[in-house]
């Protein structure tokens, strides 16, 4: 099997991989997940049967790290009281950071689907390859993710 040097994958995809993970799990956990993804990818690399869609393969590993991280976070989560009422005037000015916070609260498949599709501008075929589902299911995950973002963000922010 002829695979390119692993360095090529790092040169071509490291920046997007980091962006994907920071968008999906936040800055601090994003850095950790990034390193774990690189090590896991390097471990598995020589066992690959073919060199097609190495980007998709790399992001699939990253997606699994997002799923693992979401599981850990859910286990650690404490019950919280109802969020305090946000004054209407502030709701108009919810920052992009809050939108990204809402993205990171999506279920992992929807989260990966939305981030791959809109933040990294990947085609549905690749979104599907990363999540390991059909293209239809990838579209469904993107739709469901957007729907949920609209529900969870105040109407003024999303319209």
């Amino acid at each position: 099997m002829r695979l390119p040097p692993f360095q090529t994958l790092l040169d071509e995809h490291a920046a997007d991989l980091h962006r994907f993970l920071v968008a999906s799990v936040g800055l601090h956990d994003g850095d950790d997940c990034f390193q774990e993804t690189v090590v896991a990818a390097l471990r598995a690399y020589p066992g690959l049967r073919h060199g097609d869609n190495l980007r998709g393969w790399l992001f699939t590993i990253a997606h699994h790290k997002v799923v693992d991280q979401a599981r850990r976070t859910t286990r650690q989560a404490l019950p919280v009281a109802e969020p305090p009422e946000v004054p209407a005037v502030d709701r108009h000015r919810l920052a992009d950071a809050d939108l990204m916070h809402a993205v990171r609260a999506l279920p992992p498949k929807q989260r990966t689907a939305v981030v791959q599709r809109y933040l990294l501008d990947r085609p549905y075929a690749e979104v599907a390859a990363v999540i390991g589902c059909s293209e239809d299911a990838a579209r469904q995950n993107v739709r469901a993710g957007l729907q949920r973002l609209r529900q969870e963000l105040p109407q003024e922010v999303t319209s």
Partner: protein
Amino acid sequence: MSTTDDLVTRLRRAGALPPPGGATMNGSAPDPGATHVDRLVAAAVARADADDLVDVAWAAEDTPIGTLTLAATRDGLVRIGFGHDDDMLTELATRVSPRVVHLPARLDDLRRQLDEYFAGRRTHFEVPLDRRLSRGYRLVVLEELGRVPYGETVSYKDLAVRTGHPTASRAVGTAMATNPIPIVVPCHRVLRTGGSLGGYGGGLDTKVWLLRHEGALLG
């Protein structure tokens, strides 16, 4: 405009923002040109190396004869290329292992010795060699070549004789042309019978530079 389009626009904009404070994480910046992601990659590669996952480590080294690309396995120095040699990394991925990554730490000893060599303070290299890219008679010739000292030259014919195949000058030439570890395995010290330069993978100018540097060629 629909709500979805607006949301998507906002997602694209929010996701394009650089991570806050990313470039100055940990307050340390050993390489000022390196980005936050570069440093994360280097840290991940160091972790992978601790888990024995780096089969081929490479680094670039600037020298008076231009940039050299250096590569080592766990067994030793396996390849040196002239210039920034991406083809060399591809060749190593195919012939040794696709786990080829930038890991200068594994080449620190060699880089220090190259510095000393180019500064005129070192006449031979003391690093373990991984000879797996050479086989058969070529390997025999390259091992014999390692006994030609700094400042001296031999002919292709001499090497053929020394390896017990006096008529094999052509095969010696091929061994030189395919030497995976130039400079350290000194194929620049091999000339044609009569003293004309012959060839060199790094270019004849480089061969002349090295021979003059070693005092083997006057002028």
